[in-house]
């Protein structure tokens, strides 16, 4: 059975697109046929981070409006056999999306994919609503700061009350918390909320903690999802999260302040 997974947050710039690319790639790496759909109509970031921006011909809006077929619009990843991207339109706005049109595309994607990852725009307006409306599961991306936690909380309320599942009285959307841009150092200094604080406030299952890492910016500049950088802490943390999403229990890493070793202290360590 195909699964629709929305990556959402409420607040902007917390790492939704980074996460969509990483989780989508991670699922494909593990043999699951996956498509990542960019709902951020008007901005178009996903294709950049996935490194396929030069091959976008048709986009999501074209498919909804019947200007192109789905197979024409789907962009196949050049590294992974099982991975596809459906890009957002840069020339349109979110009004080009309709519940009915999105529903049709989702139904069609369900026929050929195992996982449909929806990269939500920020906010709680139409675009974000449509990105989560058809979801079976949701990854709520949160940064360890009060405003981000509040917005995630608000989004969780909408997931529970304004989705297709809730309207049909079906089983609720399964919710996962992904804490990103986590910096144990700053938590210790009291500049950021700790994992436990966020978990306590949001009271949902913790899927993973992604550390604040230079590797993310580097990866996105190169158009390579950070999960493919197996040496990086963020890449490893995303891999763990994918494992947990698939039902494996693995301990959380990168939660504590790294004690710098003697040589590292002497020569300066890698971030």
């Amino acid at each position: 059975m195909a699964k629709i997974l929305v990556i959402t947050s409420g607040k902007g710039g917390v790492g939704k697109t980074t996460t969509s690319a990483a989780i989508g790639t991670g699922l494909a790496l593990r043999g699951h046929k996956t498509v990542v759909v960019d709902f951020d109509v008007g901005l178009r970031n996903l294709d950049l981070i996935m490194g396929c921006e030069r091959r976008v011909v048709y986009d999501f809006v074209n498919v909804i409006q019947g200007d192109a077929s789905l197979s024409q619009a789907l962009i196949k990843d050049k590294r992974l056999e099982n991975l596809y991207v459906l890009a957002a339109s840069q020339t349109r706005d979110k009004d080009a999306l309709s519940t009915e049109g999105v529903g049709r595309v989702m139904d069609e994607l369900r026929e050929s994919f195992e996982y449909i990852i929806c990269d939500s725009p920020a906010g709680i307006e139409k675009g974000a609503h449509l990105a989560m409306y058809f979801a079976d599961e949701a990854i709520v991306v949160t940064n360890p700061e009060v405003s981000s936690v509040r917005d995630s909380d608000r989004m969780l309320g909408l997931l529970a009350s304004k989705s297709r599942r809730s309207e049909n009285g079906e089983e609720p959307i399964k919710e996962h918390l992904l804490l990103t841009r986590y910096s144990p150092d700053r938590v210790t200094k009291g500049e950021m909320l700790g994992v436990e604080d966020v978990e306590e406030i949001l009271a949902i299952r913790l899927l993973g903690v992604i550390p604040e890492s230079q590797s993310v910016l580097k990866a996105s500049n190169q158009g390579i999802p950070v999960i493919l950088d197996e040496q990086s802490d963020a890449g490893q943390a995303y891999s763990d999260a994918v494992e947990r999403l698939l039902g494996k229990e693995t301990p959380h890493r990168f939660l504590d302040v790294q004690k710098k070793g003697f040589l590292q202290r002497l020569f300066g360590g890698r971030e």
Partner: protein
Amino acid sequence: MSHADLLDPAPVFQLKGSMLAITVLELAHNDLARLDHQLSEKVAQAPNFFQNTPLVLALDKLQPGAQRLDLHALLAVCRSHGLRTLAIRANLAEHIAAAQALDLPVLPPSSARERPIGPGATAAPVPAKKPEKPAEPVIRPTRVVTTPVRGGQQIYAPGGDLLVLAPVSAGAELLADGNIHVYAPMRGRALAGIKGNGQARIFCRVLAAELLSIAGRYKVAEDLRRDPNWGEAVHIHLAGDVLNITRL
């Protein structure tokens, strides 16, 4: 009687005010056949009550109907069951005119509260209060919420209590006409007794609320945070005009 007798100054009467309990028959429907039938039933239950019982016949609560009220016939029905009409209470010109035609005094519509009475054990003219049957309690089901109440959500329990078994987030709002119970951290707003019930109470496992209110009296987070019970399991009730927070 001589003229002189007429001028005798010794008073032959005295005017006295008196409050007397009197039976009021408040007519709801202009249906004399049904009235007759239902009065017969009452008489069968308490024959002592219906012996020349003085009565005020109230027509001011009568449902407006198409048919004209036959006051003469109405009085006859009452009389046949031992009720002697002293006066009518009315507000419609039509009823007042009918009463005057029969030389019956008219009382103004009552604003005083009358309690319903019925045939009691005591005989007329002062009927005893009917042993009061406890009013049917109106029990509204408690509204029970088992999933977290998130920021931006509002939950209202009309006419009753609200019971929440999951955390209530900052920015969420709970409303109830009755009590509010939160068996988890309470970080949002809770307003109990919103229709003015000062007896309503709020209970929460962890006091971390943005606002608490009972019957319109409230405390905001700024006050609540200073309370020694902040973060504790508490119970809030209204004492006079102030919210009283006590540890559970």
